[in-house]
């Protein structure tokens, strides 16, 4: 995951103090267990006993299948079952002008799908469409994208895009005050509906600044930006900035993932902890031995 995008360098330095090892060579991501990644003990597959767990399904780069969480079948499992069904109904008609899902364009789609397999096919089709449209998912192509993105981030940092120009916020504040003044004036003259509209637009506008503060994007200082966030989010708009940050962080982390949804999608800390634990375990760095070393050093 792109830690260096989500956190300032100052924090990443603190992170380094907790570093217990370095991976040599190229890193390949694993499917975390919560998404159906299968891990086995090294002894079970006859490997070295030093490795506590080994990931079985290291990135199947070329064939992307939906994760088994939402339905019990992947497309590979599905195919033979479907082929085995003899009475295949061929249909080229469309339902009200939209595309009828066609798992195999040549044979048409079949009506004997149960909800799970239909869902699996619909999800798989969306994946296939993306795979066709975007650069290849093989490790080399994706690594190249990651390297180019790292270079872009360096440029963003060096060319001062992280510097906030505070005069821009002066303009913002001016607009917010104008809208709030309008709300009070209309209220004073008892134009209640118009006054309510002005207040609504004021809320809509000022929440953008709470969003910036939630990302530590104004002063880049956690305490100051949090106070700005609480003032605008909680005091002015009545909404918890803490709730917003908690769900919004996940939204940025796994954008548009329906299988881990909050109000607008996403994952959990629990997922992260498991993910980290398995990454560490699978790379032959034993936490137990580390703990032992630490205690004997003491």
């Amino acid at each position: 995951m792109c830690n260096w995008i989500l956190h300032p360098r100052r924090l990443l330095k603190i992170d380094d103090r907790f570093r217990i090892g370095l991976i040599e060579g190229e890193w390949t991501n694993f499917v975390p267990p919560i998404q159906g990644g299968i891990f086995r003990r090294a002894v079970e597959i006859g490997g070295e006993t030093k490795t506590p767990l080994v990931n079985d399904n290291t990135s199947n780069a070329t064939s992307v299948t939906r994760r088994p969480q939402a339905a019990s079948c992947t497309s590979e499992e599905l195919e033979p079952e479907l082929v085995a069904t003899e009475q295949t109904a061929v249909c080229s008609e469309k339902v009200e002008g939209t595309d009828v899902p066609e798992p195999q364009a040549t044979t048409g789609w079949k009506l004997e799908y149960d909800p799970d397999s239909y869902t699996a096919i619909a999800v798989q089709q969306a994946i296939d469409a993306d795979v066709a449209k975007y650069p290849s998912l093989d490790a080399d192509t994706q690594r190249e994208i990651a390297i180019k993105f790292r270079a872009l981030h360096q440029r963003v940092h060096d060319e001062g895009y992280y510097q906030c120009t505070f005069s821009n916020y002066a303009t913002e504040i001016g607009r917010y005050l104008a809208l709030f003044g309008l709300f009070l004036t209309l209220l004073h003259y008892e134009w209640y509906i118009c006054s309510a509209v002005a207040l609504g637009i004021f809320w809509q506008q000022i929440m953008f600044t709470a969003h910036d503060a939630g990302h530590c994007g104004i002063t880049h200082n956690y305490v100051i930006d949090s106070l700005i966030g609480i003032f605008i989010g909680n005091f002015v708009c009545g909404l918890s900035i803490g709730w917003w940050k908690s769900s919004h962080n996940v939204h940025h982390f796994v954008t548009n993932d329906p299988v881990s949804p909050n109000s607008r999608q996403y994952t959990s800390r629990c997922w992260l902890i498991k993910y980290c634990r398995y990454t560490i375990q699978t790379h032959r760095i034993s936490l137990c031995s580390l703990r032992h070393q630490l205690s004997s050093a003491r």
Partner: protein
Amino acid sequence: MFTTSPAFFSSVKSSYYNGFQFIWNSVADFTVQYQKYTYYPIMMVARFNLYYLSWLHLASARSIKRGTAAWIRPTEVLACLCYIYLFFYLLLWKTIPHGKDAWLFLLVSHMATLPLQIQITLSHWGASTSDLGPTEAFAQRQLRTTVDVACPEWLDFFHGGLQFQTVHHLFPRVPRHNLRKLSVLVRNFCEETGIDYQILGFVEGNHSVLGKLQHITDQAKILAACQKHMAATGSMNLPNLAEL
């Protein structure tokens, strides 16, 4: 309320809301048929749901109680209580005449935030919801699942920086007033790597979201047809799809 991905057809469990289960039941069967039409009305009252979620969060174990950020929760609770006192008590109860005026004020002020609610869904609901697995680079995933809203520079204030949603997702900590300039670099990056930079006009974007909602409705109809057919006939013969 709304389904943006066929993955929801088989009930999905949220790993965020403590395993809250999105159960696909008869209510969902009903609402998904009309989701294209309920989209704007529901978005109008979305803010009331946010109050509920806010207090749920403040009461939950998820809000930080220990460490250097422990002061945040009590401060938040205090600020929220002040808001309730000012808005609900002083303004709605004390200032505005009771009855119709007060109710209308409450509704209209909350509905007027509609552009913000629409904006938030615009950036993502129209985009892909597929997961391409762990090899996909962070940058590609963000660009694939996010859409920019085209808008002239003088109108930037209306969208509050969220119109450069893809740039914001690639660099969340970059101040919003720098996003327009930075989007040029991101476009170059997209050209170099062959990733599509998705951008839609405000109206186009709305069409895209409504289209997606309709598409899922259609998929649900097909699904229902399959089930009905199998239950009715027990055979694999083809019903007439034109009747659906």
